[in-house]
Each structure stands twice: as structure tokens, then as C-alpha cells.
């Protein structure tokens, strides 16, 4: 019987292209809370909640997301089950599936997309611009509280540091 201790596997975050969005690849399964301070593409599976308040979430063609989503902008190409709240807009592309309620300022849906749920359009009153805040140094990290299972494809990340407390299954 093996006495080798079980070694925690650190997720590998690499930039798909320098300065590009963080990418959870198609063989990555994440369960839990994802909080990102940069644009994120999920082409794998995510189950839980996704918060990218000031950024864009893209559910890639292979993406299967079962999560409540809050983001500045959401683009669905794959499958998303869960309520979505966007400050700017949501795009649902041809062949995409979205089941859940949407609250957004704008929506674009292509013919051939499947959508089931409520659509609430947020109409914001124009506000007085606040005084500019000093920008933090570097990018805001992606924070996840997860139970994740990673396959060989791994995940990649476009520059932000990350805090990740996953349990991995193989």
C-alpha cells in the first residue's frame, strides 16, 4: 500500500495572451465562488457564483456555467443556467443557452439562441460623476472559494494574482 502523502495540486494560471482575459479552460471544473477583478472567460464548468463587478464574463462555446452571475458585461456563447445581473449589457449568441432571470441595462440576443426567463431592463438615472479615485497598483486578483476538479487542460490567467483554496479530484 502506498504511503505517499496526497499532494495538493496548485491550479496553473497562465495568460492565454499577455493582457488578455483570464481563462478557465474547457477541462476545468470549478465549484464555489469566483470573484474576479479582470475579464474572465469560462470555457469549462463552473458551479456556484461568479462576480466580476467591473468586468466582462464570457461563457465560451464549451462553457457550462450553473451560477448566479454579476458582471459589468456578459457574453454567452455556451450554456449558462442562473440569474444574471449586468450593469452594461448581456449578449446571447446564436447556439447559446441561457436559463435564468436577467437584469441588465441592455440585451442583445441573436437568432438561434435559447433563452428562458425574465428580462428586466434597468433604467438608470444620469448621475453626477464622482471625483476620480486613485487607481490601485496592479490588477485586482481573482479570488475563488472553491471545490475544483482540474483535468489536463488547466486554467490560465491574464496577469492578476489569485487566491485559491481548492480541493481537487482526479
Amino acid at each position, binding site marked *: 500500500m502506498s504511503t505517499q502523502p496526497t499532494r495538493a495540486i496548485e491550479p496553473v494560471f497562465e495568460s492565454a495572451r499577455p493582457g488578455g482575459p483570464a481563462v478557465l479552460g474547457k477541462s476545468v471544473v470549478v465549484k464555489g465562488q469566483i470573484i474576479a477583478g479582470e475579464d474572465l472567460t469560462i470555457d469549462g464548468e463552473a458551479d456556484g457564483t461568479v462576480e466580476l463587478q467591473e468586468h466582462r464574463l464570457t461563457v465560451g462555446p464549451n462553457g457550462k456555467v450553473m451560477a448566479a452571475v454579476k458582471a459589468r458585461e456578459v457574453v454567452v456563447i455556451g450554456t449558462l443556467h442562473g440569474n444574471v445581473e449586468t450593469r452594461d449589457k448581456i449578449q*446571447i449568441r446564436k447556439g447559446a443557452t441561457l436559463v435564468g432571470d436577467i437584469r441588465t441595462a441592455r*440585451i*442583445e*440576443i*441573436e*437568432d438561434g*439562441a*435559447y*433563452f*428562458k*426567463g*425574465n*428580462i*428586466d*431592463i434597468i*433604467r438608470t438615472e444620469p448621475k453626477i460623476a464622482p471625483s476620480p479615485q486613485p487607481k490601485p497598483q496592479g490588477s485586482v486578483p481573482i479570488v475563488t472559494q472553491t471545490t475544483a476538479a482540474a483535468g489536463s487542460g488547466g486554467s490560465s490567467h491574464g496577469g492578476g494574482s489569485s487566491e485559491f483554496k481548492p480541493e481537487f479530484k482526479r
Partner: protein
Amino acid sequence: MQASETRNSNGLDQFCSALEARPGLSILDFSGASQSTISFITDYGHRLYSDDFGHQLDHCFGTTGEFYENQSNPLLVSRFLGAAMDFEEQSFDGALVWDSLQFLTPMLLQNVVGRLHRILRPGSSLLAVFHADERVEDIPTWSYRIQDRKTVVMAHRTQRRPAQVFNNRSLEKLFQDFSSVKFFLTRDHLREVLVRR
């Protein structure tokens, strides 16, 4: 490319009169989400609940010759009602069901119409479309996209045999629990029906 037709709709025109009363209504649309319908309804300041009733029918009962036989399978019927008709009572101020009801067998049709009656608030309207030509076997199924309050763009989906052919009398009986039924006969063998809850 999907064939489409543009047609005037007096039923839609009357349905839309209620939309102008006040913003913040909840409207149910069974034709599947389209950019034009979403924009049209939400531009009034209303909330739109969108689903593709035809997609749900195909998903639960199949697209083959057993489509109608499967509608008498209690397990499949239960799954269908759970997927397509699971709403709280009086949660909508209007329903656009378009041509979907004519592809339901009598028992399932009664069940669905009963549920529509329950989920609509009193005074709200329901717009449905029925094929009026009794001689044809297969009829086209369409997805309906609202262009403006009098105009609908109908995109062809497939051909399907209707479960039954309706006349004014049978439609009045079908919607007997509603407070009124109004018919709009058109030149293209479609009977628009505006029902008041």
C-alpha cells in the same frame, strides 16, 4: 435561410392597448426570445418572461410521429408542465401564446389553458393564433417577432399536423372560464383570438 412573413395583426394591436396603461407589467411570451420582441416589450418599461413553448414541446414529447401519443404519458406531461408552465398564480399581466395551443391534445390543452387562467391577473389579456383552414393536414409552425404594435414578423420553423381544428364555437368553449373572447379573422387562414381574463 429561415423563410419569414410579415403580417398585420389586429389582435396584437388590441393586446398592446393594455401595455400603454402603465409601466412595470409582467408579460409572458411563448414564442422564444427575439431581439425585436424583447425591445418592443421592455421599451414600454415592462418585464418580459420569455420561453420557447415549441422547444419545450419538442423536448418533452419528441419530434417524431409519437409526438401526440406521448402527450398522454403522465410522466412526460408532468415533466412538460413543470418545465413550461410552472408559474405562481396571477403572476402575469398579459400572455402571448401565439400558435402553440393548437399542438396540444385535448386533455393537455385543457390543463394548459386552466394554468394560463390561473397565472394571469384578472383583466389581463391573452393573444393566441389558430389555423382556420380545416382542409390542410400539416400547417406551418412559426416563431413570432413583434415589429411594432400592428406588425408581426413570422419566421417559419417546421410543419406539423395540428392536434385539432378549432372554430369559433370550440374556442369559446375552450376559453369559457375567461371573461371574454374576441376573434379576428384574417386573409391568411389564421384566426387571432384575444381573450380577456
